[in-house]
């Protein structure tokens, strides 16, 4: 059930790997020479299969968002590389769509035009069909002519998901997409994302600070350590979907992940913390992570 990632890159690569992260290191050079550079990622090696849903969790500032940004082509790694279908990622690509926590839906376009933004079909009729299909998939039928400012945060995040899917990508990068939403909306969107993924089978790399979210969504959960971070553990979640978080296996995996993450917190090395308390703490830290990661 629990696999330890091999840190050496020369190992054989699975032929079906869609995304391969190899010997990745990332250091943010400080613009101010008196301050030290920030080492964020150390020796990250990870393979993601075609159609796999992988969540990345870790403590604040661990660089999980940075890893996603490198895979998305927005940041350049200091050394090592991310390959998607054996091609080194150097720039953003419309086959690999990034979904942002701060919501990248264009406020000057209505829902329909947002969803249609990245559609690659040539005829108007086809475009319209694709847009309608994905607007319906995220449950926004009837809101086509509505502008984002008239929608709730959850609905705007749905628009962004629909816009990403309408571009018919084969990889989705989701950077704490539900981080800014209230708890109930987050629960609902998790369920919806699970359903959509089961239908579409895109390869998904999903960064979150919420361990419950990771266990509920992912085929495998990548647990990262404190900065400069390495991959501490990769946990396979082999529980059929839709998943009930009270399922004993889910609880066991969640506690295990907390344990792995807890190793970084002084004095709590072996103690598995209460889930509620841990989640609250993670949430406040999560916001700091994002600011730090985007600099």
């Amino acid at each position: 059930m629990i696999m330890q990632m091999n840190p050496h890159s020369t190992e054989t690569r699975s032929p079906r790997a869609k995304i391969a992260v190899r010997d990745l290191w990332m250091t943010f050079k400080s613009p101010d020479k008196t301050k030290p550079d920030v080492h964020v990622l150390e020796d990250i090696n990870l393979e993601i299969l075609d159609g796999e849903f992988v969540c990345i969790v870790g403590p604040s500032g661990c660089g999980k968002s940075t890893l996603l940004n490198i895979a998305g082509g927005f940041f350049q790694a200091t050394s090592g590389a991310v390959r998607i279908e054996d091609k080194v990622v150097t720039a953003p690509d419309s086959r690999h769509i990034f979904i942002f926590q701060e919501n990248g839906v264009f406020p000057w376009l209505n829902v329909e035009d947002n969803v249609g933004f990245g559609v690659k079909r040539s005829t108007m009729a086809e475009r319209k069909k694709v847009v309608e299909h994905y607007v319906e998939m995220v449950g926004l039928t009837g809101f086509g002519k509505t502008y984002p400012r008239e929608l709730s945060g959850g609905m705007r995040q749905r628009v962004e998901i629909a816009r990403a899917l309408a571009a018919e990508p084969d990889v989705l990068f989701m950077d704490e997409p539900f981080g800014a939403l209230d708890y109930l909306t987050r629960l609902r969107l998790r369920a919806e994302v699970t359903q959509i993924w089961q239908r579409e089978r895109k390869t998904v790399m999903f960064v979150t600070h919420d361990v419950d979210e990771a266990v509920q969504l992912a085929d495998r959960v990548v647990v990262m350590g404190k900065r400069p971070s390495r991959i501490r553990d990769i946990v396979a979640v082999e529980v059929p979907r839709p998943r009930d978080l009270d399922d004993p296996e889910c609880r066991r995996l969640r506690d295990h992940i907390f344990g792995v993450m807890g190793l970084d917190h002084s004095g709590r090395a072996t103690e598995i913390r209460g889930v509620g308390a841990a989640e609250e703490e993670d949430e406040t830290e999560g916001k700091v992570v994002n600011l730090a990661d985007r600099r």
Partner: protein
Amino acid sequence: MRARLESLLLPLAVAFGFVACWHFAVKWTGSDIFPTPRQVLTGTWELVEKGVLFKYIVASLFRVATGYLLAVFVGIPLGLLMGWFTRFRMALNPAIQVLRPISPIAWIPVAILWFGVSDVAPIFLIFLASLFPITVAAMAAVQNIQLVYIRAARNFGIGGLELFKKVVLPAALPQILTGLRLALGVAWLVVVAAEMIAVNSGLGYLIIDARNAGKRYDLVVAGMAMIGLIGLGLDFLVRRMETLDEVRWGLSR
């Protein structure tokens, strides 16, 4: 409905009170030169009958429209480029910041020297007066665009000119529109000053001519009232544009 009625009736009540105060102030002081509201109305009618009021309004509006539109066509692209390309901004921004605080009025002698007493001088002055607020607004608008929109667009494979058209311009539009509104107000102020000196027609000319040729203060005030009313109308038009869905998202009102 009630709120709408109030928003109409309250300003009308203030206007009525103002006109009444004006009327009695002139009566009580026994002024021979300063006109009563009624005299201004008859003065306005006189201008209509002589056929000059409409002609002067058109002349002023034509100058404002020409100078202002020129400024829009130069200022928006210039500001967008300055906002987008750091080098371009570094090179041009100091020059703009030096020219900007010079009142357009200060340019009047230079404008007359260059263009003589013709339509070109006031148009040039209006162009100058509108150019800086528009350029600075467009530049700031681009600099304030949220990075996430640019990143999302790039992710969908949008770049170059298409990025400008599909993302940079629409994202900057609300703030540009605020600059356009500001510039139109300034342009309308400047046309009056320019017409007092540089030409022989227009509302500014009407005012200075009425004063110089016989101290006709009823016509002076009539000209002032026209300027105020047209200014109100111009502002109303721009405010209507601010309610469009394309820009409403970025305006706090």
